[in-house]
């Protein structure tokens, strides 16, 4: 597809979908709902916030209810059947959606709200020709041209996008776009070369695969006393993270009662505060340990993969430059262990 056809693609997509795509706002880029004619940016490194919020919004009304004389009247949950298209999602963020699928949609804990929206979502991703210095997707089992979590993958080959169909959903969408041209052999080869170059361009490598085993038995290791010290306990890392998905549920009353869920962060002091006043994670030490253990030990043990995709957002935006790569590498290579005896 020629690049100038992007507006046409958006127009076609909006016929059946709510389309979310990267939009530039001053020096930041966000996934926003777009309509035909909207200006989108496909020339970006990655968005400031991850597209997880399209499926897992920071504030989500689960249902509304009314308290009446003879009881509580629950109104219907909001409409979730609308089709969603995520255009321009990067491979790391798409992989994050497949991890969120595991979290929200598998086992006994199927989350209706997330999985319904996810079922109705088509991801039309954008491969990364130029990973940046904080990208470490390859250390987390991903790749700049990775297809996990994608239905279609756009690959930038200069003036055109080579569109690769990944799933049946992607095939079906392509069928509805008869104006797409057939790819030439040279285009496919070009994309293959670019994919290889992009993978080599990921310069940040850490031992992401061996960390899970290393963390076994490290719950009481003195390294946690050191690691957390500079962390100030804000929620930048967890809120920008494409996989972090902890939430809180509360009831709010305005004209009607609403049961809402909001993002929560394991780095906040009240995250595990119990009704009795007891807090099993009383300091930053326990909270930092939880973040690292959940991403690199508990989740991989339950679901077979790290709960981190190496997007680098937390590395870039942490107010005190806490770099998760250093921690993972330090644990994997025993640096921390040696440091702390």
């Amino acid at each position, binding site marked *: 597809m020629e690049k100038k056809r992007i507006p046409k693609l958006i127009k076609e997509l909006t016929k059946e979908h709510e389309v979310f795509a990267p939009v530039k706002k001053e*020096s930041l880029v966000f996934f926003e709902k777009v309509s035909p004619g909207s200006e989108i940016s496909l020339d970006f490194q990655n968005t400031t916030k991850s597209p997880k919020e399209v499926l897992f919004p*920071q*504030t989500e009304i689960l249902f509304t209810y009314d308290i009446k004389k003879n009881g509580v009247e629950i109104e219907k949950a909001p409409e979730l059947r609308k089709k969603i298209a995520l255009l321009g999602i990067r491979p790391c963020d798409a992989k994050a959606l497949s991890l969120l699928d595991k979290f929200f949609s598998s086992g006994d804990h199927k989350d209706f709200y997330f999985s319904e929206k996810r079922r109705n979502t088509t991801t039309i991703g954008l491969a990364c020709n130029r990973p940046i210095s904080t990208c470490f997707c390859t250390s987390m089992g991903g790749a700049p041209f990775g297809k996990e979590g994608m239905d279609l993958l756009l690959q930038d080959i200069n003036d055109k996008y080579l569109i690769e169909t990944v799933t049946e959903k992607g095939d079906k969408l392509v069928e509805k776009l008869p104006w797409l041209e057939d790819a030439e052999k040279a285009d496919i080869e070009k994309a293959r070369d670019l994919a290889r170059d992009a993978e080599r361009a990921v310069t940040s490598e850490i031992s992401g695969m061996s960390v899970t085993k290393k963390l076994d038995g490290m719950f009481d290791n003195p390294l946690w006393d050191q690691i957390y010290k500079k962390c*100030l306990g804000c*929620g930048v890392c967890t*809120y920008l993270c494409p996989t972090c998905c902890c939430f809180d549920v*509360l009831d709010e009353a305005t004209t009607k009662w609403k049961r809402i869920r909001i993002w929560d962060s394991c780095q906040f002091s009240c995250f595990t505060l119990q*009704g009795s006043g007891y807090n099993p994670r009383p300091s930053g030490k326990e909270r930092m340990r939880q973040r690292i253990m959940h991403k690199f030990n508990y989740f991989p043990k339950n679901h077979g993969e790290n709960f981190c995709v190496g997007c680098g957002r937390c590395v870039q935006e942490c107010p005190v*430059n806490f*770099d998760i790569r250093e921690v993972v590498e330090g644990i994997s290579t025993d640096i921390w262990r040696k440091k702390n005896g």
Partner: protein
Amino acid sequence: MHNAEESIREAAKKLLSEKKVDLIVGHEQGTLPLRTTPCFIDKVEDVPKLVWNENCDANLSKYLIGRKERMGVVAKGCDARSIAVCTFEKQIVRDNVVIIGAPCSGLIDKKKVRTKLEGKELLEATIEDEQIQLKGEGFELVLPKKDFVCSSCLTCRHKTPPIYDVFAGTKVPEVEADEFSDVADLEAKSSKERWTHFKEALDKCIRCYACRDVCPLCYCKTCFVDQTMPIWFGKTTDLSDTMIYHLVRAFHVAGRCVDCGACSRACPMNINLRELMKKTEKIMKERYNYTAGLSLEKVPPLGEFKMDDSQEFIK
């Protein structure tokens, strides 16, 4: 700032080897261009890690609050001023802290750099004399440093810490900057325009509380937004909830804020949080001729009650 780096290391070494402190809180090289990261040094051999440059942007007074150890701290003007405020408010025990005062020539605002680079990634940055050199894939720029200095530093009048125990380096001559030039735009707006302005600015807030958590004056054991039994304020990202959070925080730090700019630097959504604080600072200056953090003795206006106060606000 670089000869100060050596002096800071010497001071740190002396304090540790003479066992005057248990720990030095300073800055070390970060993992990204234009970044440093806070560090805690308890061994003399680790002292060479300490750096001092235009990227030492963390307000380290945050790490002194509620601590029992004897700590040496590397402090810029704004760090020292917030140490003064927190000491007066009994959050820092002055006798436990040795302030290594350091001269500051203004911090580099990485957000201004980001805006300039229009999406291109910065891979290397060097600052020499009054110029900043920015390098990345396919570009190399040499630009005047002054264009990338944090707004809070441009209007700062206390580049040499007003309070310190040891001074490292050479004192910086204070520039008679118009300290409130930043709020002129805000003041020129009608109340309706201001409302629109704040609504637009705060609508981006994701309530990560980075602004609160980097602020040395936000030391409440339980912040009002974290009150859960019962909940005091809404926790959603609806504008009414975020607005309440920011307004209450602004009121809470009024007359105490030293405009270190840490809140604005920390915000991942690029909200200019210090704008509202700066306005409250101006009100304090005009009404009470008071500037926070310059003295350990002077009682702040909002910390005392005078029987002869005109109380003009009660009508």
